[in-house]
């Protein structure tokens, strides 16, 4: 087949176009590149040099080698749902889009594993194997469209990681294209504890700065025999928080333990999947228990009792699967639902020791009052992962900056009580400077030392994850102001 002519005169575009299957597998014209100027973190934007769509490992390796040999910055991108700006081409990168590498390569039920290409969509895996009684556990809210490659880069979590862990706990093997184009395989055949430093664990969650993952072996789990979900409404946030602690203290390990506050409830009720939550409650808990059917009833009874002891207004278990699904749909669209009550919103992702919940929530309220911006709270209460959603209107001058400051202040509160600045969304561009809330300079240096082993020229996804060395808070402010303008 004759190749369609590439219109660009740029020698790199021309060269890169020969490394993919078809001229349509490279985008380089300005209007085509706009869609790639940001990911789910929309406050910061930058234009890539080009976007290429390889279809196999060999092509990825060739593209990477070309970029490496010609000192072109590059980065990998999945579905672009990341919330911290990890796939934004800050340095005019060549974006290597993984969306055409979307095959499910194999499923091995006996050995509980599946091999996927990085562009394979998270939920599709569960959908493909559910009739055989299996599923893939990590379930970020964007699972209907986010890719497993992206999940690996971000070490994505989800509502059910309280019991089952995050992405890193489910990755058995990776094929990785290193920043010089070499291809390595780690966790060969998905076998555990491969001798040598745990590169699997290191690369998972490295936000695409150590290599580009081209094949992933994941652990799959057997569907639990039974699941039951409880919904509880509280008039006081403190009572809801105490109920969370008491459930855990009772020795129950719920599959999920989610909480929403009043503003968040207002949002989800105004959005696509309302379920009729009362608007005047202060906190809502969604608690799911799964496992052997014979043992579920007792745990549900205990949970209902714990809630009653904490002055719950109303608490009950879902009457059927339909109701359970409706509650979850309502919760899982929580972030997007903020669009129904605010023109713009900024999602934060702090983690705190569970016992500090009431203290932290009151501090976040204070931040809200002081900034004059509403802050909704949706959180994975069981593991202390908070998602304060700062509501703002970007059309009002200065409000975006105010929202970013409020978001950062929320993270400071989390760090100060012994928590951290991100539980599942990653640092990306957004929280680079906030890394200083939790790490000393030499600890950050220890991490960049490791990056240099993999990515010595720093051509792969540069400028992410780590604060600018030796800069002070003033510079950070300037940077944020520049990002907004």
């Amino acid at each position: 087949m004759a190749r369609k002519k590439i219109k660009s005169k740029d020698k790199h575009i021309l060269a890169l176009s020969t490394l993919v299957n078809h001229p349509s597998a490279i985008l380089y014209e300005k209007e085509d590149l706009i869609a790639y100027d940001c990911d789910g973190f929309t406050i910061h934007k930058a234009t890539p040099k080009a976007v290429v769509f390889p279809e196999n490992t060999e092509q990825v390796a060739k593209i990477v080698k070309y970029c490496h040999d010609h000192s072109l910055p590059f980065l990998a991108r999945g579905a672009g749902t990341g919330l911290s700006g990890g796939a934004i081409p800050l340095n005019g990168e060549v974006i290597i889009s993984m969306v055409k590498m979307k095959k499910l390569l194999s499923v091995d039920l006996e050995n509980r594993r599946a091999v996927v290409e990085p562009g394979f969509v998270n939920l599709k895996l569960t959908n493909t194997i559910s009739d055989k009684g299996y599923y893939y556990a990590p379930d970020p809210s964007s699972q209907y469209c986010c890719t497993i490659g992206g999940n690996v880069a971000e070490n994505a979590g989800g509502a059910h990681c309280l019991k089952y862990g995050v992405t890193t706990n489910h990755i058995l093997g990776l094929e990785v294209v290193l920043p010089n184009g070499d291809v390595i395989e780690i966790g060969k055949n998905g076998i555990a504890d491969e001798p040598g430093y745990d590169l699997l664990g290191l690369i998972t969650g490295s936000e695409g700065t150590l290599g580009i993952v081209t094949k992933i072996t994941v652990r799959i789990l057997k569907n639990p025999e039974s699941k039951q979900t409880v919904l509880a409404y509280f008039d006081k946030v403190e009572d809801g928080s105490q109920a969370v602690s008491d459930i855990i203290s009772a020795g129950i390990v719920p599959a999920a333990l989610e909480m929403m506050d009043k503003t968040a409830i207002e949002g989800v009720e105004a959005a696509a999947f309302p379920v009729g939550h009362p608007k005047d409650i202060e906190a809502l808990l969604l608690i799911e228990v799964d496992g052997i059917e014979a043992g579920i009833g007792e745990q549900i009874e205990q949970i209902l009792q714990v809630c009653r002891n904490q002055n719950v207004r109303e608490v009950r278990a879902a009457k059927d699967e339909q109701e359970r699904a409706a509650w979850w749909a309502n919760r899982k669209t929580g972030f997007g639902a903020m669009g129904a009550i605010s023109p713009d919103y900024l999602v934060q992702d702090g983690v705190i020791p569970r016992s500090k919940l009431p203290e932290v929530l009151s501090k976040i309220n204070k931040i809200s009052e002081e900034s004059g911006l509403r802050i909704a709270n949706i959180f994975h209460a069981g593991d202390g992962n908070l998602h304060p959603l700062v509501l703002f209107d970007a059309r009002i001058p200065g409000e975006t900056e105010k929202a970013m400051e409020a978001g950062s202040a929320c993270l400071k509160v989390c760090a100060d009580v012994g928590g951290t600045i991100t539980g599942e969304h990653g640092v990306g561009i957004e929280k680079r400077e906030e890394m200083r809330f939790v790490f000393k300079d030499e600890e950050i240096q220890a991490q960049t030392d490791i990056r240099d082993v993999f990515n010595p020229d720093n051509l792969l996804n540069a400028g992410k994850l780590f604060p600018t060395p030796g800069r002070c808070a003033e510079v950070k402010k300037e940077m944020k102001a520049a990002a907004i303008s």
Partner: protein
Amino acid sequence: MTTTSFLDEIKSLIDEDQVIDSTKDNQPYGNSGHITIHPQTEQEICDILQYASNHHLLVNIAGAGSKRGFGGEMESANILLSLERYTGIVEHHAGDMTITVKAGTSFQEIQNYLKPYNQKIALDPFLPQQATIGGLIACNDSGPKRLGYGSARDAVIGLRIVYPDGKVIRSGGKVVKNVAGYDMNKLFIGSMGTIGVLSEITIKLRPVTKDETTMLITFPNHKIEEIKAFSIQLLDSMIEPICFELLNPELTEIFSGEKSFALLISFEDVEKSVQYQEEYLKKQIPKNAKMKKLKGEDSAHFWQAFYQLVPNALENPKNEKVKAAVKIGTVNVNIAPILKESSLIQDTCNVKIFGHGGLGHGIMQLYIDGAEVDVIDALKKLRSLAKMYNGYAVIRHLPFNLRKQIDTWGEKPSSFFLLEGIKEKIDPKRMLNRHRYVGGI
């Protein structure tokens, strides 16, 4: 630098009774030091490493010393840094279900401390009474219950590490979910002390379940293929075992007096669930298979004995006989054929092999008894066997003189240059546990 010349200087850094001249110690497992230092604080660990780094001294690290037979080509370094006296609980937040401990604390001591809170560390290492938490994490040890519990990489959420130059680096944090920066914890778990000394370890806890039971099912007249098929069918059912381990006949004999393959299956949950799974299991077992239920005290005794079986460096080699231990990693269900074939190696090499492996996690432990030359022969054959099944074999216990005859770790992985790069960045002088790890790192 001679031992005596730096011994005096070391004594100026640390109390005299914490420093021992161990030049003359007879250490059949190597990995020792001309002098042994017992720091009691993190600052002392920092001071010693800084001193060693400035003076180009080599340092070996030990906890209780049970794993001194695990890797290492050096009989003795200048200093043996023993963390045995660096013990204790730093903090325990019962409500947050996290604990921070000093590396030299014994695993059992931590579990005992947690018991009144109905909490535990969800790990089941070998030699729990003796092994220190630091040692078992540095070696990434795990037992049969890893099927339900996971392994050290699933439990550890934060570390304080003393780097070779004496600085303290923290990785992770104190919360159970954390993606700030690289997941540096993972680098140190299983790193065999080659890139830093673990100082404080923060671990997430799990509740002690209300009920637990262990079943030992013996198969006197069954072929391994039948046991494998039965296992696959059970694992595909709704049961949620914490442990699903296949035992070879030699090992089964120790516990049941019967020389046959056996399955060791444990459940931990609320009472009704455990009972239900037990009943289900009873209905499934094939004809002629026998099931023995271990509950309460019986179960505790059984596991205590089970975890003590592993040959280790706290016992001295007797006569000409040696003991070795090897860990094989494979694709889960290949445990069955490998265990079967290891029995044949037993006969051809004239050794005794006790073995068990998890059909749900693919990690197998084999303990070998025999004359030196036979044990080496058996180890080589076991490594080839593992390779045939696309797996690996790591020798986790062998006397020092024999470790020269067979490499502890086997072939270098294709990513070896990265492992070496990491070592070079963190420990450029190669002073910590030199040559203890993969490819001589």
